[in-house]
């Protein structure tokens, strides 16, 4: 069953277009991530679902009911704000207990205490219950804000960057914790806003990529990774980022080939939905490339690209190598052993599996043309 149905939301703040025809659905018990850069409209979308932002047009349905005329306090949604929005006059316990004491639930004191304690322990703030909000670190505040959401049953959880202010280690463990909650026995529908693709990939059942108030693609983590709909979506996932080379398509004896603008790179591409002569860009993920050193055998079915080392970044066990091939820059992640002894301006070769390249139209908004 559909838990949340967002249908063609439009919203302007003055002249600024915040939402431009945003639509998606979230199924019951699904964990849905909204991924996008800051200013993309993620928070506005979340607040529209919550009823805090009145969209100019479009609708939000909750559990099949049109929610447009339902006040936020009757929507039975729990939201974690990026600014935390903790009540400064209350201590941690009262902040987390707030939804349980509201007219919607009005739980007895004993159950409130029990639930708040359990939630706070789970989030690692159990020892802070008597503290004032102003005595907490940002990371602690964020966990209290999350606690105010997780403590209660809700039709859906709306989480706005709930892990952004935690340090790296805590973020990883909290991510695991959230995953356990989300995919555990409870399965509360969750809309999770983030700008961190790792969070999205690891947590989400499905991901919606949003930019400039438009949803670019909705799909499972597998789908958005393997078949990104636009160049922007491809760029949003993976570090180092996907490398783009702009060029054109030519028909070479029935085989479509991509040739970069300077002619330095040519790769056969199949199943591309475009005419020869069109300006396109070729995207290659750095982990889909291998460094070809010395005179080793070139595996069958791979293409070889020759270039020179432009930048070397040693990152522990791996090395990120950026090569200049003609006028294009292409990144590759190599094992430290393979990159050993390499220096800037050294000549190297890359091996590329033509099945793993992506072809997009020109520019950031370029549509996917492969397959």
């Amino acid at each position, binding site marked *: 069953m559909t838990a949340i149905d967002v249908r063609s939301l439009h919203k302007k703040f003055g002249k600024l277009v915040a939402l431009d025809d945003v639509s998606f659905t979230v199924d019951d018990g699904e964990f849905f991530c909204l991924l996008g850069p800051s200013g993309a409209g993620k928070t506005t979308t979340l607040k529209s679902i919550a009823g805090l932002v009145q969209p100019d047009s479009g609708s939000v349905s909750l559990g099949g009911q049109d929610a447009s005329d339902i006040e936020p306090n009757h929507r039975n949604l729990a939201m974690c704000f990026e600014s935390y929005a903790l009540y400064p006059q209350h201590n941690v316990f009262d902040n987390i207990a*707030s939804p349980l004491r509201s007219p919607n639930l009005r739980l007895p004191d004993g159950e409130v205490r029990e639930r708040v304690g359990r939630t706070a322990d789970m989030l690692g703030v159990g020892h802070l219950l008597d503290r004032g909000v102003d005595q907490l670190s940002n990371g602690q505040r964020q966990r209290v804000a999350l606690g105010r959401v997780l403590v209660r049953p809700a039709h859906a959880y709306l989480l706005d960057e709930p892990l952004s202010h935690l340090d790296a280690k805590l973020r990883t463990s909290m991510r695991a914790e959230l995953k356990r909650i989300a995919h555990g026995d409870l399965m509360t529908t969750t809309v999770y806003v983030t700008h961190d693709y790792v969070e999205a990939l690891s947590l989400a059942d499905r991901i919606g990529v949003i930019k400039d108030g438009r949803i670019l693609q909705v799909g499972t983590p597998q789908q958005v990774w393997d078949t990104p709909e636009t160049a922007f979506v491809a760029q949003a996932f993976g570090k180092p980022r996907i490398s783009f080379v702009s060029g054109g398509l030519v028909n070479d004896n029935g085989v479509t080939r991509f040739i970069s603008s300077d002619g330095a790179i040519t790769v056969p591409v199949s199943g591309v939905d475009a005419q020869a002569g069109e300006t396109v860009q070729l995207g290659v993920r750095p982990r889909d490339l291998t460094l070809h050193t010395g005179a080793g055998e070139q595996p069958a079915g791979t293409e070889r690209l020759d270039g020179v080392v432009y930048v070397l970044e040693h990152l522990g066990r791996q090395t990120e190598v950026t090569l200049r091939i003609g006028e294009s820059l292409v990144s590759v992640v190599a094992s430290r052993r393979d990159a050993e002894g390499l220096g800037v301006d050294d000549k190297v070769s890359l091996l590329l599996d033509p099945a793993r390249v992506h072809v997009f139209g020109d520019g950031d908004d370029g549509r996917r043309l492969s397959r």
Partner: protein
Amino acid sequence: MGTTTEPMAEPAAPAPAKQPPGPPSTANQRRAQRGSAAGLFGNLALVLYFAFSLLPVLFIVLLSLKSNAQQTTTYLWFTPTLENYQTVLGLGDGGSSYVRFFLASLATSTGAVLVSLLIGIPAAYAAARYRFRGSEDLMFTLLSFRFAPELVVIIPLGVIYQQIGLYDTIFGMIWVLQLVTMPLVVWILRSFFQDLPAELEEAALLDGYTRRQAFLKIVLPLVRPGIAAVCLLAFIFAWNNFIFPFTLTSGDAQTVTVSSLAFLGGNQVRFNLVAAGAVMAVLPPLVLALCIQRYLVRGLSFGAVKG
């Protein structure tokens, strides 16, 4: 999109910065380098200004303690007496209506502040939280009351008051004092409400509280110090007002500011009584002002300067 990444704001307004301020330290160092001549000169200027500032107060306090015989014959050395205060309060001979004036001041000022709060809090909240047509017009209409010459309203109001029986009544005074207190209350409270992130109320809504509950439980406690400060400031200005009670009352609702003139008239001018009356009339606002030092800047500037 409209998100703040800032950590939770301090309750209500941030306190005035207490750290050593910018320009002075550098100025101070230069002074130290040039020797203390300039610093000395500065201190001298300060002493002169504050002598000027406090002299009339000292004078009036001393005058209020002088007996009839001594008020025209001495400056500083005399035998202090409290008989002027007794006379003004009607405790000794003669009797007077000073206590009644004092109570009238209290009633009109308190009433004016309460009415302003009741009407002003919702309006200030609406102006701070919603963008709606006419909001700015309302705010500036209110502000224009603050700057309008009072007589423009007093003269027609006097005519109306005579007709509907509000002349020389406490209620009539409370109504007209809205010109003084309402702009103050609405403008300052709006600035306090604006300082609070709207997401606090939004969080309360999602917790399941109604808008009214969110306002009463979350917002109001946070701006309570601000509201208290506004109340006191509005009270002070209402109390200190002269032209409205002077023109629109004649006896029952006359206030202390007007009554102080009474001792100046008549054929026997009793300066020491004037002084005693003035001292007592000045005390309430002075004492209250000390309680709101922290919010004084914002209050006096109608929220234009946060302080």
